[in-house]
C-alpha cells in the first residue's frame, strides 16, 4: 500500500495565458479578469477558434497576455470590429475586452447597437469608475462626488451628470442573451465572475445573442488607495451604485450548468 498521498493539481496557470508579465499596476484587477477569460477559454477548449478584440485603455495590450488570435480596435469601436469578424466567421468565438471609457463613453453607440442586433459576440466590460491609462480622469461610470484629475473637487452631478449603469441599460434590449454584473474584490466574487464569463461564452456558443459581463474592478493608482483599500472601495462605494445581478438571462441558458 502506497504511503504517498495521491498528487492532484488543483490550480495552475492556464495554457491560454501567455508567460508574459503584465504591465498593470500592483493591485489592479485587470490581471484577474484576464486570467478568468483565459481559464474559461481553456475549459471550453476555445483557444483555436477564438479571436479577441482589444480596445484602447489600460487593456490595450490584452493580446500580450491572452493567448489567441487578436485584433486591436480604435477607441470605442471594438464591438463594430467584432461584428465584422463574427459576420465573416460565424463559427468562431469573438470577444471584446473594454474599459468604461472605451465602452460607455466614446463607444456607447457601438455597444448598444451590437447588443440590439443580437450580435453573437461576448463583451468583457471592466468598470473601474475612472480613466486609467490617461492618468485618472472622470469616466462615465465615475461616482457622484468621486475625485478624479478632471473632476478635482469631485464629480458634480449638476455639471457632469450621473454615472451610467450600462448592464441595466443593455439588458433592456431584445438582442441581449446574457447580461450580468460581477465584482473582482474578493475570492467569492471572483468565482462568481468566472461563472458569469463562462455563461457569457456559452451564450455565444449557443447562438443566443449578445452577451456581456460587467466587472467592477480596482484602479488603486488613480483612486489614490493601496490595493487592499481599493478592494474595500469597490465593496463599500461601487456596489451600492452598481448592484451585482443577472440583468438578462436567456431562458435557453437555464439548462447550462457551469
Amino acid at each position, binding site marked *: 500500500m502506497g504511503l504517498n498521498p495521491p498528487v492532484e493539481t488543483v490550480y495552475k496557470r492556464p495554457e491560454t495565458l501567455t508567460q508574459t508579465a503584465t504591465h498593470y499596476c500592483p493591485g489592479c484587477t485587470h490581471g484577474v479578469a484576464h486570467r478568468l477569460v483565459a481559464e474559461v477559454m481553456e475549459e471550453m477548449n476555445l*483557444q*483555436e*477558434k*477564438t*479571436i479577441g*478584440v*482589444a480596445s484602447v485603455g489600460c487593456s*490595450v495590450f490584452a*493580446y500580450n497576455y491572452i*493567448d*489567441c*488570435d*487578436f*485584433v*486591436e*480596435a*480604435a477607441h470605442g*469601436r471594438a464591438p*463594430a*470590429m*467584432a*461584428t*465584422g*469578424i463574427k*459576420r*465573416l*466567421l460565424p463559427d*468562431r468565438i469573438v470577444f471584446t475586452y473594454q474599459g468604461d471609457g472605451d465602452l460607455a463613453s466614446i463607444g456607447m*453607440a*457601438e455597444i*448598444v*447597437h451590437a447588443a440590439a442586433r443580437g450580435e453573437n459576440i461576448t463583451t468583457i466590460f471592466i468598470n473601474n469608475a475612472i480613466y486609467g491609462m490617461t492618468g485618472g480622469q472622470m469616466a462615465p461610470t465615475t461616482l457622484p462626488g468621486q475625485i478624479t484629475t478632471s473632476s478635482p473637487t469631485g464629480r458634480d452631478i449638476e455639471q457632469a451628470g450621473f454615472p451610467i449603469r450600462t448592464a441595466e441599460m443593455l439588458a433592456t434590449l431584445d438582442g441581449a442573451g446574457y447580461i450580468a454584473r460581477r465584482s473582482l474584490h474578493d475570492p467569492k466574487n471572483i468565482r462568481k465572475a468566472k461563472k458569469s464569463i463562462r455563461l457569457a461564452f456559452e451564450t455565444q456558443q449557443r447562438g443566443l445573442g449578445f452577451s456581456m459581463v460587467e466587472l467592477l474592478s480596482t484602479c488603486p493608482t488613480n483612486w489614490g488607495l493601496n490595493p487592499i483599500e481599493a478592494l474595500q472601495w469597490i465593496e463599500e462605494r461601487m456596489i451600492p451604485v452598481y448592484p451585482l445581478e443577472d440583468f438578462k438571462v436567456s431562458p435557453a441558458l437555464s439548462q447550462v450548468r457551469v
Partner: protein
Amino acid sequence: MAKELLKGNEAIAEAAIRSGLEAYFGYPITPQTELLEWLSRRMPELGRTFLQAESELAAINMVYGAACTGARVMTSSSSPGISLMMEGISYIAGTEIPVVLVDVMRGGPGLGNIAPAQGDYNQIVHGGGHGDFHPIVLAPASVQESIDLTVEAFDLADKYRAIVVVLIDGSIGQMMEPAELPPMQPIQKRNQEWAVTGAKDRERRILSSIYIDPEDEEVINFRLLERWNEIEANELRYKEYFMEDAELVVIGFGTAGRVALSAVRAARSEGIPVGLLRPITVSPFPYARIKEQTELACGMLVVEMNSGQMLQDVLAAVGGKIPVEFYGRMGGVVPLPDEILAEIRRLCYEPVAPSANPRISWMNRMNITKN
C-alpha cells in the same frame, strides 16, 4: 455580356459583387444610397454579408474587422460620411489590410448639399486620416469606367494590402448610362498568411496598428512608404485626348474631366490646339507626365468642382515653367462645357503672366461674371 442601362451607384455595387465581394457594411447617405440598397438585396440573395451599420464610424470599423479575416470587403459613403470614416481609414492603413471604399462626393463643407462636387480630393488624396500613408485613389468619369475601376480596386487592394478608394461625384453615382458588367468571379477562399481566423494548427496572429516603440513605428512608416513608391512606379493611370500636338492642356478628373472633354472637342473644332489630360489615378498622381508636357505646351488649365485642390498638385508638377490657369465651380455646381470653352479661348488668345496666382485670377473672373 451585353450593355445595359445602369445607374452608377448600382453598377459599382454589382461590379463589386462580381469581383468577389464577401461583405459590405454601410450607412445611408445621399447621393450614394442606391449602392447600399442594391447590396441589401443582392448580398443576402448570394449568401454573403450585408449589414446596415448604426453610423459611418461603425461601418468603417466593421469593414476593418471583416478585412482582418482576409475577406474582400467594401463600404461606401458620401463626403460627410467619409469625414466620419477617417479614423478607421487610418487604422486600416496602419494595420496594412486591403479594403475598398467608394466615395460619392457631394457639396460641402459641413452638411452642404446633395449635389455633385469634388471637394473630397484633399481629404482623400492628401488626407485619409492621421499619420503618414497614401490610399490609392481611382477617379472614373463614366458608369463603365466606374465598373472597370471597381473591379480593379479589389485587385489593387489585395496586391498592396492597401486602401483603394473609388472617388466619384453624385452625378456619376446617379446617372444612367449603357455599360457592360464584368462576368461573375467566384468567391475565392483565400488563405491570407496574415488573417485572423482562430489559431488552429498555426502560431497565433495579432493585427493592430499599434507600435508603442517609436523605432518600430518608424520601420512601419518606411515600409508603407516603400510600398507607396512601388505603387507610384507601377500603378499610374491617366487618359489623354488630343494631346499629340496640344499647345494648351486642360487637366481635370472625374466629371470635371468629362465636361472638359466636351469643351476641348468644341475648341478643337475652332482650330485651337488644345488637349485633355484626365488623371484616372489621382493618387498616385501623374506628376511626371504633367512635368513632361511643360516642354511642349505653353499653358495649362485645371478644371475642378472645388476651389482648386488638385490644382496644387498640378502647380507642383509644372514648377512655374508655364502659366497654369484654374476654373472651378463649387458647392455642388457642375461647370458647363461652354464655361470651360470660354476659359480655353481666353487662355489661347489672352496672355497669362506666369507669376499670376491662378486661384486669385479665377476668383476675380468669377466676380466679374457674377456681376
